[in-house]
């Protein structure tokens, strides 16, 4: 087991707890930066495209994690904010705004839009809030249809290429550059998220998640803090939506459907609610499952001659995985990793119940 000998308050404030942690994350970043080399050498960039999609999806997961995992506000409507970011980005680019301004602005617009929409539903809790946001994601498609003049509605609209200082980036023309753009967005969002966690805002989000009553008694303004969380979360979703648009190159009213909202939600549950790592693990899993199912299907038909063509099989399998996680691993994949790590750190003193959530102390519901 490692003992970190702290000699200053900064040891609790800085990003990495100890040198080894810094090393591993630096190594991960270096590997991510070097990754395209593998595909340049092999000459096949299909898998890189998949990895880029996972990166984009993980930005959306980070956004939802901030809202649901960190602040405890469930949202089943995040695809709506992704759509907002996507269309804002397209419209700004078509209006001639340079990408470097249009892209962040699209995120901010989605954030603003999300906050305005969220204001009336912020008083709701738990399942009621989830239902209100679910309604939001149901009407998204209709709103896109109604605003056909700008969004292209049913027939869709094509997404302009990214252009940075005259250098044009298209997912198919130059997948490597596109990958780096996605990676940069992920790294920046991750840094913002990590900074939030170590500052008063992040703590006030967690305070609201765990006990609204005592958060209030500590001087935290519930409405303002929840609105802030919604704003940041929707901004990240908007950025992810804008990147998603670039990646899809063509979007219609069906691109950001309710299935995407639910997939996002399920991804963060499988990844581990409340953990930043969980957002990434969830994004990886939700990107991996369709690929695995497709490969499994091919394997079955080529080697055994069995053809499975059941519509909705992917959703069903994903649903089963989620149910299994909720039943057997409520802390998600990252929680499982924490348990394994603690097992080895404390060996042989790990106890089975170490991560069991305590339910023995009643919460006061009286003062609400």
């Amino acid at each position: 087991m490692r003992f970190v000998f702290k000699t200053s308050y900064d040891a609790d404030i800085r990003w990495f707890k100890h040198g080894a942690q810094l090393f591993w994350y630096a190594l991960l970043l270096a590997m991510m930066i070097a990754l395209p080399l593998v595909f340049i050498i092999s000459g096949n960039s299909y898998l890189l495209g998949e990895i880029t999609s996972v990166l984009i999806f993980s930005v959306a997961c980070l956004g939802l994690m901030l809202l649901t995992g960190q602040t405890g506000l469930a949202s089943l409507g995040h695809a709506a904010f992704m759509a907002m970011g996507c269309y804002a980005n397209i419209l700004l680019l078509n209006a001639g705004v340079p990408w470097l301004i249009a892209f962040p602005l699209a995120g901010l617009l989605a954030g603003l839009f999300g906050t305005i929409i969220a204001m009336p539903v912020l008083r709701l809790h738990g399942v009621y809030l989830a239902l209100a946001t679910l309604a939001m994601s149901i009407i998204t498609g209709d709103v896109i249809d109604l605003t056909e003049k700008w969004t292209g509605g049913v027939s869709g609209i094509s997404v302009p290429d990214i252009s940075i200082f005259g250098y044009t980036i298209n997912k198919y023309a130059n997948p490597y550059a596109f990958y780096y753009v996605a990676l940069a967005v992920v790294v920046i969002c991750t840094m913002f998220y990590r900074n939030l966690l170590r500052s008063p805002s992040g703590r006030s989000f967690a305070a609201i998640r765990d006990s609204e009553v005592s958060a209030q008694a500590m001087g935290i303004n519930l409405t303002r803090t929840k609105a802030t969380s919604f704003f940041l979360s929707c901004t990240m979703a908007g950025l992810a939506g804008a990147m998603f648009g670039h990646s899809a190159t063509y979007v219609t009213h069906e691109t950001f459907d309710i299935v995407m909202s639910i997939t996002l939600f399920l991804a963060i549950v499988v990844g581990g609610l409340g953990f930043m790592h969980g957002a990434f693990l969830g994004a990886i899993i939700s990107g991996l499952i369709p690929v695995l199912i497709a490969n499994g299907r091919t394997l079955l038909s080529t080697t055994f001659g069995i053809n499975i063509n059941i519509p909705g099989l992917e959703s069903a399998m994903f649903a089963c995985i989620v149910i299994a996680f909720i039943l057997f691993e409520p802390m998600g994949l990252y929680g499982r990793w924490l348990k394994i790590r603690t097992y080895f750190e404390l060996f042989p003193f790990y106890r089975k119940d170490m991560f069991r959530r305590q339910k023995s102390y009643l919460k006061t519901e009286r003062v609400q």
Partner: protein
Amino acid sequence: MSHAPLLEIKNATQRFGGVVAVNDVSLHVNEGEVFALVGPNGAGKSTVFNLLSRFHTPAEGSITFDGNDVLKLSSDDVPSIGIARTFQNIELFEQATVLQNLLVGRHRHRKSNIFSELFFTPKARNEERQHRHAVEQVIDFLDLQAYRDKMISGLPYGVRKVVELGRALATEPKLLLLDEPASGLSVEETQDMAFWIEDMQKQMGITILMVEHDMGLVSAVSNRVLALSDGKELATGTPAEVQSHPAVIEAYLGTSGIQKGGKK
């Protein structure tokens, strides 16, 4: 005393439907005093606290604290005038560490805004260090060093109780509301609590208003006691006076008249 009391509640009444939880209660707490509210279950003690925290608005009456009209504030503004509280059934942030819980207590001293926090500017970092320093003093005072990085969800009851006290202390209050600080604590832990209350009063100059059932603790630490029953004030005075007051004895033990009546 020549100057005005720190906290003054005048004729406060709070009804929940037909139940009058607090009925025309008046009390004043002087600066530097330990004031205890006692009474049987359902007497309205916690309701008085919730009125002070602005979770409820009284139907009648006024509350002034340190020159401020408390009833004009919203509940998240109450800490900023110097009132901090603990809860009867511990209300900590379960999925956070002790340190993070205590740091939430510093929220009212927050000067950074969301943008300086997102970029974690040198100013935000400096502020964070100051919060950390203030919290460290609370940790020292309450001997919580061993638990700094522990999750609340894994802590025993007694420690949680102390962490909640610490979180209230981290706000640097003028008035501390303790809702049953000794409930569920062992004899040793209650004794620790008594020493801390005394230290807070004498060294830190914090005024304390507490609800407590443990009359041993109440008589050990408090200067004045108010006994409530059915939302009504029974008696005010020193712990000894209140304990020997006939109305208080009646409220706790019943009257001999009823016993006679029962025998008939």
